[in-house]
């Protein structure tokens, strides 16, 4: 959208330059100085931050960062920057007003169809559209121009209107309302006897200092203005009609946010695979050990005794199960990114895995497990466990621990598993009931 300014042949009215007269350019023009007179540019016109144009401005595209006083007409889009000041009339197919711009402009729009709104209302608005651009300009010349001093009205809401006031044919103007709320595009004439019948076009006087700016992309049929409708011939539009606020969203679908574009889809909780070696009988695999760990941490089978288990509230016995086999693939997202679990990040307390009430107790059990494991490992027939081979998981919320202490969380078994099945002989587990010590 920006006019290229690197070519040496581009026309530039530099800062410190004043042109008193008419400028006709068939190439892009950039104004950083002052121009007092009409500016007709076939290409793009950019008024820089220190630029000032006082006169009629016509260009294919207009980008304003400075001050423009006069009529603006663009075949394409008009972009008004955050520090721009525009006073006068404006007609364009698209208009983008950024936050902070001071506007006192008269926008001529023609509205024929309004999606989602009542048809009679839309047709009524359409009937008041001008038939040609010359007629519109003639009306603009005869109608009084609103005062340019009031720029503080912030009661209005942004409005999206697609305007083509300079169209030679009565092309319809598409106005697409937002999904909710439904805009009220009632352009009623001013009930004043002195005022002639409703104008042949919908006129809006913009008195607003934008606080919420919207930048439209090419192709968006939307105009974001804060408007105040009035009828032709009214001296003061603020006295003629109250401000009508409309909220019409642009036709463009909202672009996905940055987080939506970057954040991978939520990953399911990592699946825990029971260890067949520690529990030869699948039915007796009642207890499983879930560890918050890094995925590269090697988990070895750890023998556990029932006496080491902390009593649960319901009397169930917490048991330890070896971790999943090493050939288990790391959980990854559909895009191949490592999930938070695979990256070693803290899991968000999956309630199905670690009851919050059991965490302190199980952590203590884990410490005891580590201590006994290191003491009994040489004498046991089960695969020996080297305490140093167990990498503790980084858990900042846990109690202080040594680097050799693994972190285990024991999930309680279900009631039917505990009651119906026999404890593992190998692990010598027995269920505990509530109240057992």
């Amino acid at each position, binding site marked *: 959208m920006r006019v290229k300014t690197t070519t040496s042949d581009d026309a530039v009215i530099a800062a410190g330059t004043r042109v008193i007269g008419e400028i006709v350019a068939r190439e892009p023009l950039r104004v950083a*100085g002052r121009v007092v007179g009409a500016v007709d540019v076939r290409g793009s016109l950019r008024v820089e931050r220190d630029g000032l144009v006082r006169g009629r401005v016509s260009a294919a595209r207009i980008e304003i960062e400075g001050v423009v006083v006069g009529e603006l007409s663009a075949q394409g889009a008009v972009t008004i920057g955050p520090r721009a000041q525009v006073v006068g009339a404006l007609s364009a197919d698209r208009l983008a007003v950024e936050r902070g711009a001071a506007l006192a402009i008269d926008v001529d729009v023609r509205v024929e169809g309004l999606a989602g709104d009542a048809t009679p209302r839309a047709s009524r608005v359409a009937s008041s559209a001008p038939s040609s651009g010359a007629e519109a300009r003639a009306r603009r010349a005869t109608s009084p121009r609103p005062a340019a001093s009031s720029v503080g009205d912030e009661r209005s809401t942004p409005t999206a209107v697609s305007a083509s006031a300079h169209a030679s044919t009565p092309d319809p103007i598409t106005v697409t309302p937002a999904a909710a709320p439904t805009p009220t595009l009632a352009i009623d004439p001013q009930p004043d006897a002195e005022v002639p019948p409703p104008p042949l076009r919908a006129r809006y006087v913009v008195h607003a200092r934008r606080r919420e700016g919207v930048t439209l992309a090419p192709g968006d049929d939307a105009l974001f203005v804060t408007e105040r409708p009035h009828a032709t011939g009214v001296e003061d539009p603020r006295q003629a009609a109250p401000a009508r606020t409309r909220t019409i969203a642009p036709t463009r679908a909202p672009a996905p946010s940055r987080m939506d574009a970057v954040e991978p889809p939520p990953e399911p909780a990592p699946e825990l695979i029971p260890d067949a070696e520690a529990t030869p009988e699948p039915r007796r695999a009642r207890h499983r050990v879930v560890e918050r760990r890094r995925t590269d941490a090697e988990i070895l089978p750890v023998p556990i005794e029932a006496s080491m288990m902390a009593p649960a509230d319901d009397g169930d016995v917490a048991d330890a199960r070896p971790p999943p086999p090493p050939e288990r693939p790391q959980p990854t997202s559909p895009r191949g990114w490592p999930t938070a679990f695979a990256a070693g990040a803290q899991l968000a307390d999956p309630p199905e895995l670690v009851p919050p009430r059991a965490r302190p107790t199980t952590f203590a059990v884990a410490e005891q497990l580590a201590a006994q494991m290191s003491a009994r490992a040489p004498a046991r027939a089960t695969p020996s466990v080297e305490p140093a081979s167990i990498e503790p998981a980084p858990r900042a919320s846990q109690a202080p621990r040594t680097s050799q202490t693994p972190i285990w969380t024991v999930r309680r078994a279900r009631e039917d598993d505990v009651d119906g099945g026999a404890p593992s002989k190998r692990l010598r587990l027995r269920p505990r009931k509530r109240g057992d010590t």
Partner: protein
Amino acid sequence: MTASWSPPRGARGPDAGLETRVGRAMLVRGDVESTGDVRVFGRVEGDVRADGRVTIERRGEVQGTIVGRRVDVAGTLVGPAHADERIEVRLDAVVIGDLFAPRIVIADGARVDGVVHMDVDGRGGARAGEDDDE
């Protein structure tokens, strides 16, 4: 007249100090006043006054008075030229008007139809806007 107008105080941005360029496909019907340099690639139907250097490029044309610290003409100038330092008329340039400068260079092949005024006080003769023989 040029000294009566000064650039705005905010004119210290990236465009400050850049020269004004009248593009090849650009027409200015009016006067151009600048505190910097002016280069004319297109057409100016009016006076050009600059505190810096005024250059009429090869296909440029100015129909009016040129006033500057230094004036270079490679295109067409229809009107007088006043320079504080120097006026140079380059090859294939066409000047129809008087030249006022302490130093004037007219290249071989240039066409000058006017009177050359070389003031000895270094002012380059009467400035535009003053009462001169124009």
